[in-house]
């Protein structure tokens, strides 16, 4: 094990996979010599040159379409969006072409594209740089949606993304980029659709996404002293979503809360609640509860920004209420 930041771990995966597979190349704004706004490609230009680290103009729809064509010809494009909010400019290419191409070609064409970038609220990034779009992408058949929380998961899941044949949304919460954690020395690819039990417990199951995993873990330590034993589950990928691990946990606890910074309506929490109701109804001792960020555009003002995301206090209250229910 070694200690790496989240960004360094993901970069290590990219570096290793680019060395292993010459068809992988990166496109994006300032990802060449500059090494990426978030250092996602720092040092790679020197290793692999300007063809495989291809700077683009600010033309999202254009280079997403370019990636679709490149993938059809047998290469593996990685598009680094910096902020995923701007991927929305190319949604037609993603939803109509990239996601449907394998189906339309009866599998003759594959679509190994990785679309990566920052999501999430933090640092007064304001409404055009704070979106969490994974629920929207999870609603599209053909896309894989990955939301790693730890450096080890960032590396292991990125490797799987770079070795598969489906388009993958690799979404990195900006508050996690500089968090450190142990990363295995060996070459580990983490399969999609396998949740991580971040903490074992028996009173209540809390499914948390991205940055909320770490908040819930902090709260769980506090609640342990109150006699509330929280099991924390990090799905790691929201498409595919590991319902089995969640339901197995609920079989133990009888109660579930989903904590998600993203919006509640039609969100991942809604999907989890529905699946739990469908497959584990008889295990529920209380309704599945959700705790989400406010359903509003993200404010620029730091005090306003801080109150629209679930705080540690709000998480603790939600868990206490659910356990008493």
């Amino acid at each position, binding site marked *: 094990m070694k200690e790496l930041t989240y960004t360094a771990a993901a970069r290590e995966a990219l570096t290793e996979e680019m060395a292993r597979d010459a068809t992988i190349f990166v496109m994006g704004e300032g990802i060449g010599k500059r090494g990426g706004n978030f250092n996602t490609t720092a040092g790679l230009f020197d290793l692999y040159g300007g063809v495989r680290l291809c700077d683009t103009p600010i033309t999202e729809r254009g280079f997403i379409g370019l990636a679709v064509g490149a993938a059809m010809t047998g290469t593996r494009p990685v598009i680094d969006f910096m902020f995923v909010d701007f991927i929305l400019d190319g949604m037609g290419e993603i939803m109509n072409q990239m996601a449907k191409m394998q189906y339309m070609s009866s599998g003759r064409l594959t679509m190994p594209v990785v679309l990566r970038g920052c999501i999430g609220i933090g640092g007064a990034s304001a409404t055009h740089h704070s979106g969490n779009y994974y629920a929207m992408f999870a609603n599209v058949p053909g896309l894989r949606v990955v939301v790693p929380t730890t450096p080890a998961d960032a590396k292991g899941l990125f490797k799987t993304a770079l070795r598969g044949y489906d388009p993958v949304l690799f979404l990195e919460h900006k508050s996690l980029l500089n968090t450190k954690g142990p990363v295995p020395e060996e070459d580990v690819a983490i399969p999609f659709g396998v949740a991580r039990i971040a903490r074992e417990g028996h009173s209540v199951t809390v499914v948390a996404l991205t940055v909320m995993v770490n908040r819930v873990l902090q709260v769980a330590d506090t609640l342990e002293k109150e006699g509330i034993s929280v099991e924390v589950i990090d799905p790691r990928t929201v498409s595919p979503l590991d319902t089995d691990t969640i339901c197995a946990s609920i079989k133990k606890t009888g109660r579930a809360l989903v904590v998600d910074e993203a919006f509640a309506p039609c969100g991942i929490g809604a999907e989890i609640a529905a699946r739990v109701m469908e497959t584990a109804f008889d295990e529920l001792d*209380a309704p599945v509860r959700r705790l989400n960020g406010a359903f509003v555009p993200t404010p620029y003002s730091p005090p306003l920004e801080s109150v629209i995301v679930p705080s540690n206090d709000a998480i603790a209250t939600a868990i206490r209420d659910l356990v008493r229910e």
Partner: protein
Amino acid sequence: MATEIVMPKLGWTMEEGTLVEWKKQDGDRVSPGEIYMLVESDKSVNEIESFEEGILRKLPNGPNVGETVKVGTVIGYLLAPGEKAPFEKDAPSVQTSSAVAKPASAAAHEAGHQLAPVLRNGLPRISPRALRVARELGVDWKSLTGSGTSARILERDVRNAHARPAVAPQALAGPVSQPAGTAPKAPALTIAAAPAVVTPPSATRRLIAQRLQTSAQTTAAVTLTTEIDATELVKLREVLKTRTGYVVPAYTDLFAKICALSLRLHPAINASWTDGGIVARDGQDIGIAVQTDRGLLVPVLRSPATKSVATVATESAALIQQAREGTLGAGAMQGASATITNLGMFGVDGFTPIVNLPESAILGMGRIVPKVVVIDEATEKTAIRKMMVLSLTFDHRLVDGAPAAQFLATIREYAEQPYLWLTG
């Protein structure tokens, strides 16, 4: 829109309340500020006034007067004129209002407290998990109440109900009592470190353990002790012993008769506490605790008050023999009004017997021992008398201390002056 009337929460600790009286009748108009019912909680009766205007409709399957229900239980509705109640056909939806009731003495009113509706289709709400577990364990959940803030019956409520043995009155009227304060150990309690010999309890032992545990945990047991002068009873037996052709009663027989006669004067003791209410008992049958190889058995002497001492003694000797031989039928151990237990032969004076449910009293007999007693304080006259301690345990849920003490005083009077009843 119909407004629910629920059992109000009148204090922080109030969990259930008793409907004492409806001040308004079904169909009556209720105006804001009017008192429409009385509710008892924590031993005080509160007048409940309405916040709203409407026609009172009582829930047909709601609580009767005198019935106790959980806080938040729907007991009726306030309706607009001409509006149908939700329990009637084609009724519109219900508005849940926790503010519909408040005590007239508003000091205890607790604003904003969540009063979750408990009933749905007349049944309590239950979580899917609890329902599944109830089916697996065969627990009848319809009589349970939820322990969480949702008032929904939860898995733990079902499991607790399952762990608690159902106590049917029939099973209680049975074969065991407890002479001394020796609480049985639950068989599950073993000390891991000690190389103890673990013996599975016999069925009788298990039953004794279960029933005494139930009694110890459910009754509000209080023990009164008093020292009595048993000299006359001792004399009575000694005289009979010197004659031929007379049956000599045991002290237990004498006290069985005395106890039955005393119960006649104190019918409040001759009753049982049940979930349905206080059940008064006819007749005065007396159980007598008998130690046997199989454990403690309590055969019942039928109506010793109406029989001669000789008859009582003959019958009790037969019962004791049957108990020791194991030929006693279950029916012979049921239906007692009270039980007598005698540890005098083991040198015990006072003790704290455990009430033999569903009875409400048990009389413990101590040893009879000669003592120097002050006969007249002024002349400093003393005498040697045969003294004895009686220990009466009673269930304070049913009987208060004063009537229990009066009952014991009658027993004492009859024991000290047997002519009072021997000639009766």
